[in-house]
């Protein structure tokens, strides 16, 4: 189970870094979104292997539940990540309106 998570994290980080290093604002936006996912899964993986454990809805003490703290942190992280992504989308929209280009070189040279 953890092996799969590790692989997903690796692929997500690679693709997001590749996109962020592009010269066009749209791939950069996509890369940013993927980077968000990568970081989220990384954080969640810290709660350990969930195999054979229950969701952290406690009905009976003594049973084996997954760690609730990473999940709680992640809940915050997802929402904040969305806020930042939304801001980025509008920012890029404004940049596009001002420069009528999505190419970073054009935007710089304007």
């Amino acid at each position, binding site marked *: 189970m953890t*092996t799969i998570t590790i692989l997903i994290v690796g692929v*997500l980080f690679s*693709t997001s870094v590749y996109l962020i290093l592009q010269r066009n604002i749209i791939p950069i936006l996509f890369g940013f979104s993927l980077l968000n996912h990568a970081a989220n899964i990384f954080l969640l993986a810290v709660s350990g292997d969930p195999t054979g454990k229950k969701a952290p809805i*406690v009905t009976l003490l003594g049973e084996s539940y997954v760690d609730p703290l990473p999940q709680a942190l992640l809940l915050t992280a997802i929402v904040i990540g969305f806020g930042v992504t939304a801001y980025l989308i509008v920012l890029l929209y*404004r940049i596009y309106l001002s420069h009528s280009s*999505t*190419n970073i070189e054009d935007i710089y040279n304007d």
Partner: protein
Amino acid sequence: MAIESLLLIAVFLPLFIAPVVGFFARSLSLNVAWIGIGTAITSASLIGRIIKLTKGLPFVISYNWVPAFDLQLSFLVDGLSLFFGLVITCIGAFVLFYARFYMSLKDENGRFFAYLMLFMFAMLGTVFSNHLLLTFLFWELTGVASFLLIGFLYNKPESQKGSLMALIVTGTTGLVMLLGILLAKSVFGTYDLSLLIAQRDSLVVVGALPTAVMALMLVGAFGKSAQFPFHFWLPNAMAAPTPVSSYLHSAAMVKLGIFLTARLFPIFSHNPYWGDIIVTVGFITMLIGAVYSILSHDLKAILAYTTVSQLGFLMGVYGLGHMQLLEHDFFHILNHVFYKASLFMVAGIVIHIVGTKDIRKMGGLFRIAPFAGMATLFACMAMAGLPGTMGFISKELMLETLLHNAQSHGGIAWVWVGTIIMSAICLFATSLRFFKTLFMGTVPLDLKDSLHAPGLWIQLPPLVLASCLIIFGLNPELLGHALAGLTVSGMHAIKMSHLALWHGLTTPFLLSLTISGLGVGLYTLFERKHWQMEIPKQLRFDTAFNNGLEGLATLSKRLHSWLRLDQSQDYLGIVISYIVLMSSGFILYYLPLSTIRFDWIRLEHIPATVIGFVICVFSIAVVTQKKWTTRLIALSVVGFFISFYFVIYRAPDLALTQMLIESVSLILMLLLLSKIPKGMAIKEEASVYTGAKKRVVLLISVLSGFVMMIVLWFLLSDPPATKLGDYFIDKTNSLAGGSNAVNTVVVDFRGFDTMGEISVLVIATLGILGLLMRWQGPTEESK
């Protein structure tokens, strides 16, 4: 009142008045100067009271300031500091009075007078401080205040250049002085000046280290007092308003170097190099200043060079004193303070009347400004050293000392006699020229219409100051008696020779006659050539200095353009690859191989494997697909499948939130992309990397993914024995009254985090609103 409180008030009053002056300038306009004058007079009278109370005996006031640095707020009250304190405050009062009528309503007077008060405070602090580090602090504060004052008219290029030059030269030499101070602490074991002076007989000042201390500190003094080779900053500082020139650059700040030399005299005068260094530097400066003064034609530059010359002379006084103790050094200083301050004030008045600085275009102003003319006559007489003025006595005393030295030592001492005679001839010619060209003869034709008489009040301060030259020149004992109360033991001779107007027909007097004759001759010679000579370009140190500065700027520009990348994306690549390199190095070094565990994929992992496979494939599709729409769909698929993956991790809340947010993000991105026309796709093609650059980017991204995998792998191989999460599972029902531990953590246990999260959302919303609203703004305006 006790001496302590008197002194503290005298020193710190200008500091507290500075903001007051700045504040009231709006309502009081130029009259705010009266507050400053009142302050200066108060400080001066307090210092006068201290003189009466201490009767010339040294007195130390000490408070702990930063004990960790061995720094004390320590003040030394003795003849030297009291004398300089009086000069600073009294001349300050005159200058403020002058500035009241000199500045115009258009100037930022609050700023100007506040700077002047700040400067006065820094000066008083420097002369009274007993702790070498404190001296340095105040010393640099005078430099900062002078920078602000020289650059007061900050949009004039010469002000910018001049203030920067003054700051760099005096600041750098000040730092050299700091080196000397720190070395002094390790050599002599104390920063305390009064201790050093008290122990001067047992102190070892001969040898390599003490000589280094002395030389380093003297560099600071030479820089501040514009001694050769630092003399060039002073003429450039003349870009300041004239009251500033009159105060800082003749009476007060440039005297700080002289002050420091005087302060160090009791300590270092036994060092064999003391006299040689100071006399050589001082007399070279004296000659250069005098020669340059006669070659300049800018009114203020002439005065600046005569100041340089006179400062060299004053330095020389302290250098020559090492063979016996000093006599009448204060008399020399006062002579210069009186005549130079008044000449600068006159120069300000004259430049104001005629509207030019070129002395060759002036003349016949006596009728228009008779009092300024009288002041100039007295001051020029003193500068030329004519009998009946303080200048005469000062020059006679110096000649006498020099001749005495030359007769007993011979050799190089005769060179110094020659130097002072040559400088005196040049200064005589300059004085003659200054007075004759400005006030005698006829008014040049092109000026006749534009002249307007200056007010009476503005002519008063120079006249009063210049009259002192005559009063004390005719009755030198008057001043000698007053100054006798300010002697410093170890510095001044216990019994001074009497000052007298007439010494008889002595060699110095005969020399004086010769100097006057030759001075008139030099003046006539230059007059015939119509003053066409200029200071040779090669000998103008300021141009060399400016070229050096520009060279440095060019060098740094070249270095910058060599290192600079044009695009932020390239920086980002460098930063990311740096992180990858650093962390992989770290990982390789600390690789905990023993704890590494590999978790094989088993049968029950099949759902997770399928979901993970989909996530990986579609995230790669986001990279490889050409069309934006396809990419966006792939991205969405990744997002939704991640919410499935959350389900596998037994996180129902996360899965729900992720679904919701993924949908909203998709809508937002669609909105953005729908605005971008299809034709842009062609342009997008141009921004795709090709060739080597593509491979480099690929390598960086694969490596960074790999590093993150390894980090996570180590993290999961060695989980901690107890987790904080167990506590929340335990207490979720009993403490928070909810069975969903994730929810209770979010709202109860870590409620403040959630509050922060909401704030971030609010801020993001406000930012988005701002971005969108600002876009609408300009279009409405343009309607």
